[in-house]
């Protein structure tokens, strides 16, 4: 399966600032996905990053708050803008890659843990 590198792995941020998270994949992929995992909760899809077009956002997430870039087929960034303590979460990048028995499954990066003070 694909190998995904995310950075930063963790950061502590001040309220009102913005932080960009980078996601690098070791193979070319059509779609990259950004998830949020709030403390003690499950994963929620933020958006799908498409190469060559604007990202597709899920309900409750907007481009102004979570701008996404996808300059090529192996890289994407997610920015968390104008952060507040409610944005303290783990942000995970994922891609679809071959898994068991050759079927395509979601593969995740290790996540970026953001703490907003």
């Amino acid at each position: 399966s694909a190998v995904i590198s995310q950075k930063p792995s963790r950061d502590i941020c001040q309220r009102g600032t913005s932080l960009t998270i980078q996601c690098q994949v070791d193979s070319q992929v059509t779609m990259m996905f950004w998830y949020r995992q709030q403390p003690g909760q499950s994963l929620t899809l933020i958006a799908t990053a498409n190469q060559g077009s604007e990202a597709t956002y899920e309900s409750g997430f907007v481009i102004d708050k979570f701008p996404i870039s996808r300059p090529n087929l192996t890289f994407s960034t997610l920015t968390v803008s104008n952060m507040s303590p409610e944005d303290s979460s783990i942000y995970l990048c994922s891609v679809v890659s071959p898994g068991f028995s050759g079927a395509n499954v979601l593969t995740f990066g290790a996540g970026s843990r953001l703490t907003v003070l």
Partner: protein
Amino acid sequence: AQTVTQSQPEMSVQEAETVTLSCTYDTSESDYYLFWYKQPPSRQMILVIRQEAYKQQNATENRFSVNFQKAAKSFSLKISDSQLGDAAMYFCAYRSSSGSARQLTFGSGTQLTVLP
């Protein structure tokens, strides 16, 4: 909309013993996929096992197996010969066979502790 329910927020098991994690889901579809993901303290989400709804045979991956009961909409994970490295948060997930990967629905997770 599909929902995935994990009713056990926490479970513990003695090393070398067997533990079963529960998952139920709600869907009106007949064809779909079910997954168990593991998230250890390192936060790396790892796919543990995958089941296609059209297959009657339960999926097995080494010490991990599932009990898939389609009529009951139940998809439990059995871990045999538990090891300390199995300690993690386990998420059950659902995806429609007609949907894209973005339509993966996760349960709330079960924190598994393995006792030495």
